[in-house]
């Protein structure tokens, strides 16, 4: 007995959890594949997801060959919804998901439609991610107001129209931190420094140039904040250099007077619902394990966007999500007729952090399989990305440079994959 016996209010061919760039692209692609009853559930009052607060430009360079702002990029897809008949539930939260091999069942709630039970022939997970907090990285000191994660500060500034501080220190040189450094300066604040614990920045190179260098904001690599002080509001921080083990070096303390700390210390895919549905999660990505069709370990459940792995460019989110939407449509329409004849697990070594997909289920329908991955160390001169079956090389790609902060991808032709022996492929970096 499972969820196929539960009462439900409505049945859909596809329910998409999240109306940001991932969910929008997946829903539209599924519709274009001929799928009929599609629902997008979005917790905010409008579609667009995190793009709505990314008012800077630089989105769509690959996908549209234009430089759009976040809201403009989202708008393209929101406009495309017109006339498709795709159903949208705004201001509505998905509470849970239950999956058996016969059904997918979820509860949603919102003010307009109340509490509802929905059944779906397929589901796309597109819930995005949340920010790592101060508590998670345990910065010592007092706990005054004025410590924000960069995304929350961005929400206040760009959506709600409020400034959050006047003298700012940024912890973490990920893209959100870099973007907010510039944003705070443009709103009249003084940004004293961007402090980064690693010896390299985690953000896109163009952001380091356009957000820090252009505004004379120092980037302190191999440094971290070791104390926050202030009674009710932040009054200052202590910054220290760290060694190769990321341990603060005594004697290197510098004090900064400031009233605001913005934390850009990592994004965590929001997979609470995924975990509770007993869907297999990859600890390296904190996202679901998927095959090349973005299908998770649960039948008919697909994942794409930041909930699957944290992206840097929304253009890749769109492409990945379109693949998920198409796969969901094929699943519902029973179009994946060709049998899977081989499963290959993708493994990594210490040079590569993870791959998405984590496995390839080959059938005659496949042709070219794109694998996304991130390297663990900076490769600032040409290097090779090698795919090996353990006894021989299957493929080799030359890359001029690779950074952990910029997601990479390779395309593997099925013809080469068929040559592999065994059922494991390892993806690794080899220096020239």
């Amino acid at each position, binding site marked *: 007995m499972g969820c196929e016996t539960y009462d439900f209010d409505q049945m859909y061919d596809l329910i998409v959890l999240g109306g940001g760039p991932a969910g929008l692209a997946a829903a539209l692609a599924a519709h274009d594949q001929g799928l009929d009853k599609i629902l997008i559930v979005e917790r905010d009052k409008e579609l667009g997801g995190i793009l709505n607060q990314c008012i800077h430009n630089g989105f769509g360079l690959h996908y549209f060959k234009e430089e759009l702002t976040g809201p403009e990029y989202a708008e393209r897809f929101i406009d495309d919804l017109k006339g498709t008949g795709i159903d949208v539930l705004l201001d509505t939260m998905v509470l849970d998901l239950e999956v058996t091999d016969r059904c997918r069942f979820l509860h949603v*709630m919102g*003010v307009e439609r109340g509490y509802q039970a929905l059944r779906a022939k397929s589901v796309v997970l597109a819930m995005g991610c949340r920010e790592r*907090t101060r508590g998670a990285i345990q910065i010592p000191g*007092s706990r005054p107001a004025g410590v924000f994660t960069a995304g929350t500060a961005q929400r206040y*500034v760009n959506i*709600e129209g*409020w400034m*959050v501080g006047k003298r700012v220190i940024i912890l973490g040189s990920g893209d959100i931190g870099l973007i907010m450094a510039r944003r705070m300066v443009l*709103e009249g604040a003084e940004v004293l420094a961007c402090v980064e614990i690693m010896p390299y920045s985690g953000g896109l190179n163009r952001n380091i140039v356009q957000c820090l260098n252009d505004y004379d904001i120092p980037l302190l690599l191999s440094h971290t904040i070791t104390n926050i002080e202030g009674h*009710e509001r932040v009054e200052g921080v202590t910054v220290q250099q760290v060694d190769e083990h990321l341990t603060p070096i005594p004697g290197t303390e510098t004090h900064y007077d400031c009233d605001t700390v913005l934390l850009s210390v990592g994004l965590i895919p929001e997979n609470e619902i995924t975990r509770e549905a007993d869907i297999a999660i990859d600890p390296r990505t904190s996202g679901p394990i998927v095959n090349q069709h973005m299908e998770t370990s649960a039948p008919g459940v697909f994942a794409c966007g930041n909930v699957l792995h944290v992206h840097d460019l929304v253009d890749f989110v769109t492409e990945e999500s379109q693949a998920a939407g198409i796969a969901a449509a094929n699943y519902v329409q029973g179009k994946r007729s060709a049998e899977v004849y081989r499963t290959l697990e993708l493994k990594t070594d210490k040079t590569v952090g993870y791959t998405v997909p984590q496995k390839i289920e080959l059938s005659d329908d496949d042709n070219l399989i794109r694998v996304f991955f991130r390297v663990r160390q900076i490769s600032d001169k040409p290097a090779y990305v090698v795919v090996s079956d353990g006894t021989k090389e299957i493929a080799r790609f030359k890359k001029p440079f690779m950074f952990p902060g910029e997601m990479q991808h390779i395309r593997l032709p099925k013809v080469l994959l068929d040559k592999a022996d065994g059922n494991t492929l390892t993806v690794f970096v080899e220096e020239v």
Partner: protein
Amino acid sequence: MRDVYDVTIIGGGVSGAALAYTLSQYEVKVLWLEKENDLAMGASRANTAIVHGGYDPEPDTLMGKFNTQGAYMCMDLCADLDVEFRKTGSFIIAFNDAEIEHLKLLYKRGLENKVQDMELMDGDRVREREPHLSKEVVAGLWIPHSGVINPWEFTIAMGEVAVRNGVDLKLKKQVTGLTRGDDLWVVDVNDGKETYYSNYVVNAAGVHSDEIHNRVAEPSFKIIPTRGEYYLLDRAIGPSVNAVIFQCPSARGKGVLVSPTVHGNILVGPNSEVIDEKEDTSVTREALESVGEQAQRSVPDLNLRASIRNYAGIRSNSDYGDFFIQVSAPHFVDIAAIKSPGLTCAPPIALYAKDLLEQEGLALQKKTDWKGGRKVVRFKEIPEEERAAFIRENPLYGRVICRCETITEGEIVAAIHREITPVSLDAVKRRAGTGMGRCQGGFCSPRVLEIIARETGLDPTEVMNDAEGSYILTGPTKGEEA
């Protein structure tokens, strides 16, 4: 003709709240002063949240006298006031023979303190119930009638009932002068900005209780502020415990505990550090490392990286060695030096203080129209079959604001409109639980701030993060009119 109160309570922590709750049942005019902008702003919100079983205090102390009874009273009050409480039971664990002897001593003390149903168990039996405990544990003392509570909710719930029944709570009022004149207490507040008159005064000023006492009597005790630091670990990640796990005190100190919280998370701590500044609740790297190491003695594979939050509380330790509860001046009662088990003992202490006031001549006539009890709607506790109908009747409960903890706008609005108005994000957190989950308010803070401003009429820049002065927003962005 000036307004004269019968009793003035100084301090809005759990001790003051329990007394306000008790006195509100009588025909007495009570003034209740708290220096911060909400109740439970001191140790009452930054403690280990344990309702202690009663085996620990010496029998011939006030702590020993009140603990066991206090545990039962707390459990009953939590049920009546709809305050979160989990009867988890506790284990005190032993790692060697010397510690087994200590367990036997605690057992004996527990018998004297009338603690019921205690049981000494060997290590294997302890591990049957607590599989994640260290293999080095050789024995444990099981105390079933104990558990974990939501200590700030407990304080606020008692406060809400008190205010509902006529107690005049004034927040942001720091007592800066206390003198006797015309057979009355003259209470000066905020350096003379306001003055109140009262027949009786009760000092429940927590870490400042010695300062208040010293205004009216010879110094009889000194508060030794002792800070304890904690980890709060995510319930979803890492091994867990079912009961509160205590270590035996050793040369290192009282021992760090590992405890479930009412929300299902894991609390680890506290250490014990005497500090200078009475309100310095900073956490330090050294203390956290020490706490972590000591806790791992009990639960070796404790996942300290699953940390949600660290915090610290300041105990009102003193050189007196017990609660300091007595009549120290005419018509003046101290409820001072309240350290552990002060939370558990708050209800019987309040009864005792009421008796002291009565002995000092306060006429106590029970009200016939006292409205006690409290019921709070928590959406996630509504049975599934009833949710759709509930939201139809109460649409604001249909909008989830705090995603991590599934807390709805209806609950937040209800909390704002209860008897004591919250004016900060943390005050709403203390009432509705928003912002306590893994994103620590990253998602819900802007929304909660907006709701507070809307429902209270405060400008968004006036909504504090926590105490007065903890502003969040500095003003509108450029180009916007305020």
